[in-house]
Each structure stands twice: as C-alpha cells, then as structure tokens.
C-alpha cells in the first residue's frame, strides 16, 4: 500500500477549515439565483403586489427555518444536516426520508442551474449571430467542473462560492442604487402597480414561486462537520444569510416591479438582467449578466456540496451502501458520493424539462421544512433548555414551529393549484422509498453506532 499523506492514527475525517463567511456563502450562494430568476413567476400568478406579499410571507417561513436550523444544527453538528438531526431526534425512517429530500432537492436544483447556465450561454451565442448553437456541452461542463472543484477540497470550493456570491449580491445593490429608488425618475411604481388582478387566490398561488427568493438557505447545515466552530459559525452564517436574502429579495422586487409591467415581468426568464437593460447602461447590463451567471454557478456549486454530504452521511450510517461513506485521505472530501451524483445530475439536466426539475426540488424542500417544525418541537420536549449545551436558542418557541407548519400547509395548497399531479407522484415515490428502507435496508443499519451525541437520556424515556 502506498500511502502518500500522513494520517493520524490511521483515521480520516472531513476537514474542519470553514468559517462563518463560508457558511454564509453556502446558504446565500445556493439561493441568490432565485433573485435573478424564478421569483417573478409569482408576479404572473397574482400580480406584482401578490409577489411582494409572497416575498414577505415566504421570508417569514424561511426566517423560522433559519432560526430553528440554527438552534438544532449548532447542537447536532454533523454532516448530513437535517438528516443527522432527524436521526437523533425523531427516528430512522424520518431520517431516511429527510436524507432523500435533501439529496433530491439539491441534485434537482443543481440540474436546474446547469440547464439555466447552458441556456444563458446559448442565448449569448445566438445574440452574437451564431447559428445552431447548443446548450448541452455547457450544461455538462457546469456539472463536471463544479463536481471536480468539490472533489478537490471544501475550502477552495466555498471560498470560490464566497467570491462569486458576494459579486452577485453587490450587483443587485449597485442596480438598486442606480435606479434611484428614492424618486420617480426611473422607477414607475405609481403607474405599474395594479392591485391584485386575481384577488387573494392569486396571492396564495404566488406563494409557490415566492419560495424562490429563499429556497436553499437551510443548506448551511450541511457544513456542520467542516466548520472550525459549529456553535458560532453555523448560527452566524445562517442568520446573516437570511438577513442578506430578505434585503436582496425586497430590493429585487422593488427594482423589477418599478421598471416592467406585470404582464411581462410574470413570464420573464432573467428579470434582473432585463431591468439592467432597461436602464440603457452598458456597465449595468454587463454587471447583471455576470451576476446572473455567477449566482447560477454558486447555486449549482453549493448544491453539489450539500447533496454529496447528505448522501455521504447516509452511507456512513449504512442507510445506503457504506461504500459511499468514504473520505478522500488527501482532499478530505466525500469523493465517492461526489462522483456518484455527477451522472444523476447530468441525466436530469440532459433529459428532464426545467419546470419539472424545479418543481421536484421545491416539493422535496417543502417536505423537509414540514419535518423541521415537528423536529424542533420534539427536540425541545425531549431535551428542554438547560439539559444540553446549545450554540443558539431560538426565541418564542413554539411559535416559529407553528408558523412554519401553517405556512407549509398554505404552500402545499399553492403548489397543488399548479402542480397537483407532480405533488401526488412525488408522495408516491417517497412512500415506495420508505417501504424499501423499512423492509429491506433497515436491517443493515447499525442501530447503536449511529447515535453519536453525548446527550443525556431524553425526557420521558
């Protein structure tokens, strides 16, 4: 055996090198593409004002998610994030399902980002006058390049995300300042806002796409085993992340709704880039195009990081074949999981329609949020405050959990209005997967070994 790296005690683990900035970059990086595209379909569902209501209702939902996640993850500091939380707090079947929600939500989002990036390059080629340009080479390149980056090491991967996410966010701030939001010279909100064209049902329907402003902020949890100080970095990175997104989302709505009529905005592919084009500034056009590309790259990059950690941790616990639970002795990444998920993402990006891929991702995320509300109530019941050390204690418990559950119920209805068939099909898929786990896979799980937290016996047990 040729061993080229010294391994202390013949043991390898993920590398703990990340700080709060990386956690912020992971969470915001996954999400910020939703500001650049996607959120505006909420405008098509119920008008610009409905999209603003959806923005803030979804903002409330995700603030609850961020607070709950910050408390639980700062305590259960393990790769796998919500999967590891469910394993310790709820039980194996819930953990298996949550793990699948995570892998599918992130892998589908990665595929959607790759499709979008391919589309953007194709559009540039067409605009430059080339004929018969294809998006497929750039879709595959996006996935393979980012997987390679993730394979090479987490520090470089998330530092890259930090830089491109910061540029994408600053681009929105610069555009906001450039349209002079304090006056009516550029923005025409007085003339463009037209109330609620489809009434309050339109508001409910718009919540489906309101999630796009924030979808993926919970991904910060996946870095739990690679941050230098989990109790500090995870709450700090997650809470500053949601604050960043609330600001970016509101600025984005204000810019776009003041520049474009709702009939156009509701079906635009790249609303922020379109807004920049309307300013007639070449600098802003280039900046927002770069922002669009960077936000898409950052999202795909964060998704590869998160999906591979969830898959890796499930393998490590024997919930999946243990082969996936390996760590690369040199790069200290879950290399087998990263490589395995590449063809999965490529197949979906290559063959599946974009809206189906996105809906599968949203619904998987939504199932995860529903679980979180039950999870945190069980966490506080089994281990009340003071019984174990927490890095962060979220306020007003159980109000955030109840609000989160109520908003999830509203969002299910909103999704059902537009994608009822997919909702049912996805539920059937997860039920079949659960049956496979319960009757076949669970016998391989080492039940005692999977509980790694030095916690006291839970109350009532």
């Amino acid at each position, binding site marked *: 055996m040729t061993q080229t790296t*010294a391994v202390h005690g013949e043991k390898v683990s993920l590398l703990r090198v990340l700080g709060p900035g990386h956690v912020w970059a992971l969470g915001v990086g996954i999400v910020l593409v939703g500001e650049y595209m996607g959120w505006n379909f909420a405008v098509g569902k119920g008008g610009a004002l409905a999209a603003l209501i959806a923005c803030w209702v979804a903002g409330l939902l995700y603030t609850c998610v961020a607070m709950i996640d910050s408390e639980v993850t700062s305590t259960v500091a393990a790769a796998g994030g919500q999967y590891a939380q469910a394993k310790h707090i709820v039980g194996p079947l819930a953990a298996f399902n949550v793990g699948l929600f995570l892998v599918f939500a992130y892998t589908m989002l990665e595929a959607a980002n790759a499709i979008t990036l391919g589309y953007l390059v194709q559009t540039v080629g067409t605009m430059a006058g080339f004929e018969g340009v294809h998006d497929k080479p750039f879709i595959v390149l996006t996935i393979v390049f980012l997987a390679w980056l993730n394979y090479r090491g987490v520090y470089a991967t998330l530092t890259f995300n930090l830089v491109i996410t910061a540029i994408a966010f600053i681009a929105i701030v610069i555009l906001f300042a450039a349209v002079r939001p304090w006056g009516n010279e550029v923005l025409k909100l007085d003339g463009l806002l037209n109330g609620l064209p489809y009434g309050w049902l339109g508001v409910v329907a718009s919540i489906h796409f309101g999630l796009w402003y924030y979808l993926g902020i919970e991904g910060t949890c996946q870095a739990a085993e690679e941050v230098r100080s989990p109790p500090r970095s995870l709450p700090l990175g997650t809470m500053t992340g949601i604050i960043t997104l609330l600001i970016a989302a509101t600025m984005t709505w204000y810019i776009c709704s003041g520049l474009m009529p709702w009939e156009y905005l509701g079906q635009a592919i790249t609303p922020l880039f379109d807004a920049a084009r309307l300013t007639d500034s070449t600098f802003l056009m280039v900046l927002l195009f770069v922002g669009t590309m960077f936000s898409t790259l950052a999202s795909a990059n964060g998704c590869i990081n998160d999906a591979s950690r969830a898959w890796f941790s499930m393998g490590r616990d024997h919930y999946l074949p243990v082969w996936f639970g390996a760590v690369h002795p040199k790069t200290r990444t879950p290399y087998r999981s990263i490589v395995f998920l590449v063809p999965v993402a490529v197949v979906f990006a290559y063959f599946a329609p974009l809206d189906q891929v996105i809906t599968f991702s949203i619904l998987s995320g939504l199932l995860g949020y529903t679980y979180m509300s039950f999870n945190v109530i069980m966490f506080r019941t089994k281990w009340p405050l003071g019984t174990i050390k927490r890095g962060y204690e979220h306020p007003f418990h159980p109000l955030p959990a109840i609000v989160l559950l109520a908003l999830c119920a509203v969002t299910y209805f909103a999704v059902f209005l537009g994608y009822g068939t997919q909702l049912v099909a996805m539920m059937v898929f997860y039920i079949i997967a659960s049956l496979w786990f319960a009757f076949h896979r669970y016998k391989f799980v080492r039940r005692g070994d999977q509980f790694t937290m030095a916690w006291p016996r839970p109350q009532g047990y």
Partner: protein
Amino acid sequence: MNNFEILEYIAWAISFLLGLWMVVDLIRTNRAYSEEVLLSSREGDIDDALVIDPTHQGGHR
C-alpha cells in the same frame, strides 16, 4: 465550423478530461488505501488531533 462550435468542442473536451481525472483518482485512491482507513470517518468528529495538514492555516488549535 464556426467559433461557437469550437467552443462547444472545448467544453466537451474539458468535461471529459475533468470527469476522467476524477474517475482515475477515485480508482487510484481506492487501491492505495484500505477500506478501513477510507471509511474511518465518524459523525461529528471534532477531535483536533485528527485535523491533519489544514490546507491554509497550518493548524487551528
């Protein structure tokens, strides 16, 4: 063949090379180390002694 087609071929070539690099490294790593070492990671390991060669900081104890 126009410039964009050349760009497309370059994209395919880079994808192929990076993919090949990962697969070759995966196979070489699997052969170079025992499964016991590769699967030795434990959930929530926070023992600083296990942090070897921190790439950028020379250790963070």
